[in-house]
């Protein structure tokens, strides 16, 4: 006997039809692109204390010329629970209420025209998340690209909306953590010992000075008679008679012989 009873024929043909319709109704294309921090060119400020820089999604949303591409910035734990039907600019996605109670906000909206494909050579195509400082407190600008208040970690993705209907999204990025400034510890400013040069100078000069002082003392107390004899000499101008051996002195030893 067939499993399906004639009475349930309608249900069993309806179900596959319903299943076919569901994806069409929530037809968000899952694009394989994953947003990432910019690595080309290597930027000095790719992550700072309150901003980070991601590549623009070039050649990713080519099929969605009519859509507005938004950047969704979420706290790492809130990424998986983000609902794509959230509307940008509402209080549930307002930057000013991030990170509490809002756990993910939407900003940096652009159309496909802002991301021309392919990227011209030499052009730096980046998005700096956190660069707008003028609207951080302005609740009339809920899509403000304001500086991030906590170091994170954050995850971002791009979401294309046609009107208010999400049509395509990229994957979530890997968690991005910002830099934290630590207080400068002054333990390392203490002198890390003395260099060999300074020790050598000090030692050698001290020894030389000690020798000189010893020489001065020796000179003053013993100088008058120590170097007598052959090394004694007299002042030039006071010399009237030089010491010399007399003929008489030479004669005597010769006489003894």
């Amino acid at each position: 006997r067939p499993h399906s009873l004639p009475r349930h024929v309608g249900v069993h043909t309806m179900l596959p039809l319903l299943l076919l319709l569901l994806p069409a109704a929530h037809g968000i294309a899952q694009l394989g692109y994953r947003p990432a921090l910019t690595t080309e060119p290597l930027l000095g400020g790719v992550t700072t204390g309150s901003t980070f820089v991601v590549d623009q999604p070039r050649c990713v949303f080519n099929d969605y010329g009519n859509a507005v591409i938004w950047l969704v910035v979420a706290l790492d734990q809130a990424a998986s629970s983000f609902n794509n039907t959230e509307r940008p600019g509402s209080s549930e996605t307002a930057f000013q209420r991030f990170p509490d109670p809002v756990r993910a906000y939407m900003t940096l909206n652009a159309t496909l025209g802002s991301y021309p494909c392919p990227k011209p050579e030499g052009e730096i195509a980046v998005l700096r998340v956190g660069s707008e400082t003028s609207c951080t407190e302005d609740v009339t600008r809920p899509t403000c690209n304001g500086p991030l208040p906590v170091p994170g970690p954050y995850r971002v993705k791009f979401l294309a909306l046609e009107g208010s209907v999400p049509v395509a999204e990229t994957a979530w990025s890997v968690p991005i953590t910002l830099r934290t400034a630590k207080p400068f510890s002054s333990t390392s400013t203490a002198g890390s010992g003395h260099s060999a040069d300074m020790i050598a100078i000090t030692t050698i000069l001290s020894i030389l000075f000690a020798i000189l002082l010893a020489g001065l003392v020796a000179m003053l107390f013993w100088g008058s008679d120590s170097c007598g004899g052959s090394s004694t000499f007299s002042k030039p101008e006071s010399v009237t008679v030089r010491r010399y051996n007399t003929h008489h002195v030479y004669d005597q030893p010769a006489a003894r012989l």
Partner: protein
Amino acid sequence: MAKSDDCIHILQGLLVFGNVVIGMCGIALTAECIYFVSNPHGLYPLLKATENGDINAAAWIGIFVGLALFALSILGIIGVIKASRTLLLVYIILMLITFAFEMASCITAATHRDSLTPELFLKQMLDRYQKSEPANNSDSEVTKAWDELMLQNHCCGVTGPSDWQEYQSAFRLTHSDADYPWPRTCCVLDTQGLPVSLDGCKLGVPGYYNSNGCYDAISGPVNTHAWGVAWFGFAILCWIFCVLLGTMFYWSGIEY
């Protein structure tokens, strides 16, 4: 006698020659120290703000020691030629005093040089650069000196612009991280003094900001200064040591 005459004359000649060299070295030392004191690289405010003594003191002592050496060398030459015991005794004692001063100057210069580590300048920069309420005049001087240094040498921070990111600073208290990841003087500036590309500078695009640190620009002249005073002084002192020993020997041989 002829032999000892020759010895005497040789000794006199050597001593005169030694004193001539001391005189010339004294002048050279004075000139060198005047050059350092005149602050050619604009680093004096930074060095003054480090509380570890003053490398300038060594240079000031060097100026006076150099002049003293010149004067004493003339006294020495006269004393040797006239073989006068009093003159030479005065010469020896004054020369020993000068030796002591120059020794102090050399050791100060060498010790102070050792204390000028990158960490010292980093702490000073983080604490004082662009401090919002300058506690005293030296804070604003430190800011001006750092700005001059970064502008002229196209450098940023002590080890690099990341100094401003890694550590808390007085600068960070008044300048938000998003607008000023690092000071504007770290950006490549055009002839008007404005950043060529402010966005490029804030992003850290190579070519639009100075990515190298200023420590080399500081340590180069400071090293020259310190070693110029310390090692030249040391060389002069060694020479003086020999001349003084010879003079003492000569003095002890002079008759009353």
